[in-house]
């Protein structure tokens, strides 16, 4: 039975953590993710769950302690945002190469310079090459569902990689919206017990975690990580199919909204996809064939699947909520374009930057964007790469 509730994104993820009842949560607070460790530690002090909460002195320590707990054989997690993730940088790579099934609840926020507490994806995009899986949410519902599915993915023997579940700071984390919750018993049955194959505290089989691996071993270690990341695509889909049976909610690597017959498509990640859907409804009522491809799984990157879904579109806009600082476009733009090129597509693909540092993105912005794509498709306008949406004149 689903439970009708209203919650903010942070409340929803904290509630999911409570329902899963993981073993260890080390954390250090940072806006806008602070509420997650705050709420979880309240559940713990109320005796509602028996998770071990470790207050630490920095994010470098919170990820280090999470790694230690996970290596010891515990189901471990932490939460952070922005500079907190940046401060974990070194340890993120260690978690991935040690093949630890950690979950990190990331509440996306701009990286400092200038200091800004609002949403963009520069934090997680900066960690896109760290060997972590990344799954993004559009809504509080998706943030909740993604967390419940996460350990089934990370702990799968074909994967054994850490996962970042990402939601948009403030827009999702602090907005109260309707949500459908699952019964705790059902969640626990779905997630199951964690029985690690190898773990540090197993006296029967001593092991080393994170040893020195010089040139004869390093490359093979990376190849194994790559194989695990490739395996993750199927595992993510299998877990989603099982989750649909208990929730009725269907998830894929990405979501298609009126994409099938669309001539003009937007590719984007996160909460602004909902705003784009409203714009698409308006444009469809005027007979304009607009559609959306909302990325859910960014790592592993579903390149061939995206290229197939975008096949035959007249013009595609790829929206990055991250500057990228490459001088030629954002990370999503670069990867989607590479996927299109490898598929032999001759689709016109234009990369835009939007919403950085919390700049608002409205239904009107989305409608203007589609109208620009139509002008590009008709040859009335030349594509302008790497353009900012909503830049003040």
């Amino acid at each position, binding site marked *: 039975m689903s439970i009708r509730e*209203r919650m903010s994104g942070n409340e929803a993820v904290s509630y999911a953590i409570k329902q899963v009842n993981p073993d260890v949560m080390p954390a250090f607070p940072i806006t806008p993710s602070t509420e997650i460790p705050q709420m979880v530690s309240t559940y713990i002090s109320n005796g509602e769950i028996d998770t071990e909460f470790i207050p630490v002195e920095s994010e470098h320590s919170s990820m280090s302690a999470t790694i230690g707990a996970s290596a010891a054989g515990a189901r471990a997690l932490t939460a952070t945002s922005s500079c907190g993730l940046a401060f974990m940088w070194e340890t993120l790579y260690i978690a991935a190469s040690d093949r630890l099934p950690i979950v990190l609840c990331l509440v996306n926020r701009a990286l400092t310079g200038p200091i800004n*507490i*609002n949403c963009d994806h520069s934090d997680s995009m900066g960690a896109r090459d760290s060997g972590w899986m990344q799954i993004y949410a559009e809504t509080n519902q998706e943030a909740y569902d993604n967390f419940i599915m996460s350990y089934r993915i990370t702990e799968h023997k074909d994967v054994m990689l850490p996962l970042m579940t990402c939601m*948009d700071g*403030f*827009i*999702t984390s*602090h*907005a*109260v*919206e*309707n949500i459908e919750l699952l019964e705790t018993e059902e969640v626990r049955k779905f997630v199951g017990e964690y029985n690690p194959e190898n773990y540090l505290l197993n006296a029967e089989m001593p092991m080393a975690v994170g040893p020195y691996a010089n040139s004869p071993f390093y490359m093979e270690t990376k190849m194994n990580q790559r194989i695990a990341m490739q395996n993750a695509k199927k595992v993510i889909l299998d877990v989603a199919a099982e989750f649909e049976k208990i929730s009725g909610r269907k998830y894929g690597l990405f979501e298609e909204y009126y994409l099938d017959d669309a001539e003009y498509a937007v590719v984007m990640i996160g*909460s*602004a996809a*909902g*705003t784009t*859907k*409203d714009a698409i*409804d*308006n444009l469809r*009522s005027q007979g304009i064939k607009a559609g959306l491809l909302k990325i859910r799984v960014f790592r592993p990157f579903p390149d061939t699947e995206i290229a197939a879904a975008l096949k035959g579109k007249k013009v595609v806009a790829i929206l990055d909520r991250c500057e990228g600082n490459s001088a030629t476009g954002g990370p999503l733009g670069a990867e989607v374009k590479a996927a299109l090129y490898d598929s032999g597509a001759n689709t016109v693909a234009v990369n835009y930057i939007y919403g950085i540092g*919390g700049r*608002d*993105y*409205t*239904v009107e912005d989305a409608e203007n964007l589609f109208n620009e794509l139509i002008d590009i498709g008709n040859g009335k306008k030349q594509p302008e790469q790497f353009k900012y949406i909503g830049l003040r004149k």
Partner: protein
Amino acid sequence: MKKHIEIRWHGRGGQGAKTAALLLADVAFNTGMYVQGFPEYGPERMGAPITAYNRIGDTPIRAHSNIYTPDFVVVVDETLLHTVEVTKGLKPEGAIIINTSQSKEDIIPLLNGYSGRVYTIDARKISIEALGKYFPNSPMLAAVVKVAEIMNKDEFLNLMEASYKHKFAKKPEVIEGNMNALKKAFEEVK
């Protein structure tokens, strides 16, 4: 196009405009509606102007932007009328509700020629009489529920009483005062 009521709140940090928006989302949720309640975070400090928003309707809400053409505007602190353009984008067929002890005639000239309905309520007086303290958000919540016709008075009061009983389980002595503030506000907003 799916239709949702859009409300924008103007207050100052510490007065509870964000809390009021979340309470409104709560009470509308309890009648079976789809809701959204969220603050806009600027430089957070006591006394700084802050904005909060609500979308409320019978269908799921997908837009995740701020609100620029609200149906209703609620001004929790009247000193903002001099510094913030509170009527910006406000639909003429909508309404503005202002917490003030001044008369409507004195307030209207401060509204940049807004042609829609104007409501005033003295939330300070109501709050101090009912609670002995100045908490404007309960009276303002009642006022917006009435003006925006979100639900009828009895349904609203019943839901709020249940909510206060839960919220103030450890200090039940404040429930009656809060309920009186809501009732008074429902009558006095004009």
